């Protein structure tokens, strides 16, 4: 397990790379969810909702 985090001595580089990449992907997904909620709410406020 410690070998997994150590990455043969290159742990700082490997986890900095993957860590920031993961954060960036999460940021995009969160921003997209916020945009989706906002535009759906705006559409609902305009009355463009499903008429069931």
């Amino acid at each position, binding site marked *: 397990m410690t070998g997994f985090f150590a990455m043969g001595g290159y742990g700082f580089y490997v986890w900095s790379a993957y860590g920031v990449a993961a954060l960036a992907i999460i940021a*995009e997904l969160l921003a997209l969810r916020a945009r989706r909620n906002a535009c759906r709410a705006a559409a609902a406020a305009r009355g463009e909702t499903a008429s069931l």
Partner: protein
Amino acid sequence: MNFYRYSSPSAFYPLAGTLAPWFGWSASLLAIAGLWIGFGLAPTDFQQGDAYRIIFIHVPAAWMSMFIYLVMAFWSALSLGFNTRLSAMMAQALAPTGALMTFIALWTGAFWGRPTWGTYWAWDARMTSELILLFLYFGVIALRNAIDDDRRADRACAVLALVGAVNVPIIYFSVYWWNTLHQGSSISVAAPKIAPIMLTGMLIMALAAWFYSIAVALVRVRCIILERERGAAWAGLVAEPGKA
């Protein structure tokens, strides 16, 4: 089956909504499989030790950064040629994800370069042209925000996307055209210079990145359709608040 009906935003909206989760879940499963191969099965590299494992995120992101730009340019060309709104909306939806992939390629490349080349950055041909790609993505996004009229913004961004497309073959061929720091291609049909298990992990991660990009672009274009097509008086597009 007339697929051209999907060039209408109101017809494409539900189709995108159906497809996006499929691509999203597939991307997640592929990423799990790819990372399992990359960190669990692939052996340590003889020359680079475990630092080479950055390849499983760096190369897929770099490939997607170029591919997304070409797809964005494709939709831009269609939007100019056929004056279609949805084509321009697809280009608009792709730009942020393309910028993300470019950033990930640059960042992971820097952290791979430091232990292996001794430097985070060099003004070599590929790295410089990839950085320019990031600026082009930012430019397309910024130009969109700078122009109030949607259709004028569509045309301006389409022209910028098409003009910038020349950068993609420059990135790709840079390692052949110039004597430059970034290494050449490790993959060829004849004799790949990479161990098969490493190649498999990289290809699975590339597929994961591709499906992720498709899923995110489909969700984003749905947002763009709702934002831009206001007043088109659709019924039944958006579920009542509180429902799915």
